[in-house]
């Protein structure tokens, strides 16, 4: 059991109350994230309705294999995160650290693949808004499609970055053996956040890459 952090905050009556309060608070935060990204999906739906031909023509320039690998990378990171949470609940600290490290690794691979995709697009000039300078003709409003593409994947990437920071923080706390069966709320909270980031990508991938 940990020495540095007192597990029970002074204003809670019991650990159970603190645990379920933290879980409820996290689920509220996830509900807010769902609504936050719903704005982007709404914009996607609206502009797909306005300019169907742009979405069809422009998505050819998105690399489906890279997108698919990214999906698999994120799914595996979701698995390792779930195993990390399970390890914390069982008190297997070594397993916890390994799984956290794996999740962190997969997250970095995801961002690296994203980097390649972005640089490929920048090279081709398929940039959002007024920076759009691609030579081959895409009907309708291609600058709008790529604007949407960069905002959606960029914002998602930002959430992946935040997730990596938080996983690292948990990893450090795991190093001095803070988590065990009695107290593992932070690990579970971070796990919930990471799974939501994965769920958002699960919807982003088909909508952006596999438009048909």
């Amino acid at each position, binding site marked *: 059991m940990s020495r540095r952090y007192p597990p029970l905050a002074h204003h809670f009556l019991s650990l159970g109350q603190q645990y379920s309060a933290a879980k409820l*608070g996290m689920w509220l935060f996830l509900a*807010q994230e769902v*609504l936050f*990204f719903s704005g982007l999906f*709404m*914009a996607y739906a609206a*502009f797909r309705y306005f300019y169907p031909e742009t979405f069809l023509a422009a998505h050819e320039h998105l690399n489906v294999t890279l997108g698919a690998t990214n999906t698999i990378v994120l799914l595996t990171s979701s698995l390792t995160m779930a195993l990390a949470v399970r390890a914390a609940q069982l008190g297997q600290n070594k397993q916890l650290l390994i799984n956290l490290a794996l999740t962190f690794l997969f997250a970095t691979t995801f961002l690296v693949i994203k980097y390649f995709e972005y640089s490929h697009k920048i090279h081709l000039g398929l940039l959002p*808004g007024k920076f759009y300078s691609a030579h081959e003709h895409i009907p309708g409003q291609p*600058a709008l499609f790529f*604007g949407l593409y960069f905002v959606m994947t960029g914002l998602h990437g930002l959430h992946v970055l935040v997730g990596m920071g938080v996983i690292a923080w948990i990893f450090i706390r795991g190093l001095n053996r803070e988590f065990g069966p009695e107290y593992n709320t932070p690990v579970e909270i971070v796990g919930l956040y990471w799974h939501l980031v994965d769920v958002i990508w699960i919807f982003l991938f088909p909508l952006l890459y596999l438009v048909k």
Partner: protein
Amino acid sequence: MNYLTAKKGFKSWLFTLDHKRIGLMYLVAVLSFFFLGGVFALLVRAELWTPAGDMFTADMYNKFFTLHGAIMVFLFIIPSVPASLGNFLIPLMIGAKDVAFPRLNLLSWYIYVLGALFFFYTLLFGSLDTGWTFYTPYSSQTGTSVISATLGAFILGFSSILTGVNFIVTIHKMRAPGLTWGRLPLLIWALYATAVIQVLATPVLAITLLLLVVERAFGIGFFDSTIGGDPVLFQHFFWFYSHPAVYIMILPGFGIISELITVHARKRIFGYNAIAASSVAIAVIGFLVWGHHMFVSGQSSFASMVFSFLTFAVAVPTAIKVFSWVATLYRGSIAFTAPMLYALAFIFLFSIGGLTGIFLGAIAVDVHLHDTYFVVAHFHYVMMGGTVIAFIGGIHHWWPKLFGRMYNEGWARLGCFLIFIGFNLTFFSQFVMGSRGMPRRYHSYVPEYAIWHQLSTIGSLVLGLGLVLTLVYLLHSLFWGKRAPHNPWGGESLEWQAATPPIEFNFTKQPVVTSGPYDFPEIEQDRS
């Protein structure tokens, strides 16, 4: 040793985790922004004294009414009741030591301060002239500093979300033993419904403002039709947040009024379940009605029909509340203390506000009345006549609990009278000129409306005087006011069991609840 004197020094306030101190800091900040917004309102009214736009240039006037709107909405009225009174009272009313996440509470305060700094930056550099609604394509083309203002509102949104999360978890998980949902004071029900809206609606504002910033910075045409977007789509995004936001503003006011009327009439509330359920019903249906802001903006007639019907659906629970408050007065023992005067003023003013909403809900009449001063008067009657009057009433009701001092009853009655007269003079004249076709946000106008504008300007001066008078005697009572007795109004809810003003951790021992919040000794035993 109450929470004010428990710790001393500047740092004890800046890094406090005590929900009461954070509530006080919010109260001070929120009221100062209220007066700043009020100054802009008086500048707008001063300009409109004469038909010709001769006091300020059109650009200056546009900046004044925009800043009046933006400061009042984002910096004052959204955080007003939940963040100040809500922060202070929720743990006290449910018998808890503190909110569920005290550090998150302090973080929300500092996010609020950061958002306010962005607004100060906007104020000083280029100001803002898009109206508080940021309608595109004007807001994506104008030269004023729209990006810093939208980022300010974006950040303030997160303070609102985190406060909402904090309140929902606190009310769910930290109620005293025996305090079932049916025994909660109605202010808690109202703040719970408000918190649900804050959590579910504000993120859509955040994404809307983010898309606006991205549109201005990178020229991506989401909402600017010259480059492919659709301005009406922006209005959908904006109003999906902003209509639930008006329920964030009014629901806490409803909660306060339920508390004031029951305590000062010494009666159980009439129809507890109906009022609690209508708070939640308003919160949910409030998400379906945003299209009534866009009846003439090019929205399809079919969608307008659906939105008009749902708007009338949300009017029914509001009507139930007002009727229940009036019924609560029946065979009560009504004391005309300042809080009760404000509650009665609320019923008068909010009824006008609510009923004029029906004019604007019927599409045919809205075609004539949309974007005229009729709409300006409607939402001022509901927001100022509703939320602000309830907020001032709540401040008077819990003033002894906050500071351990009693305000001067005589001055308070004068203040309430002045505010009531000034308010009606200011805004009822706007109803008249609005239905006669006076458009809103006009720097100069056709001379036929001059008499009504002059009446409204006089009214705004009286209203300003009443508000300043209220501030003066409240501040005066802080130092020279009489010491407050433990329970001046004889309230029965948990916060009156704690000391006045409460100790740092609210209760010496965990209170246990055995009965409802409004079982006053004066109530005769139930003969049935």
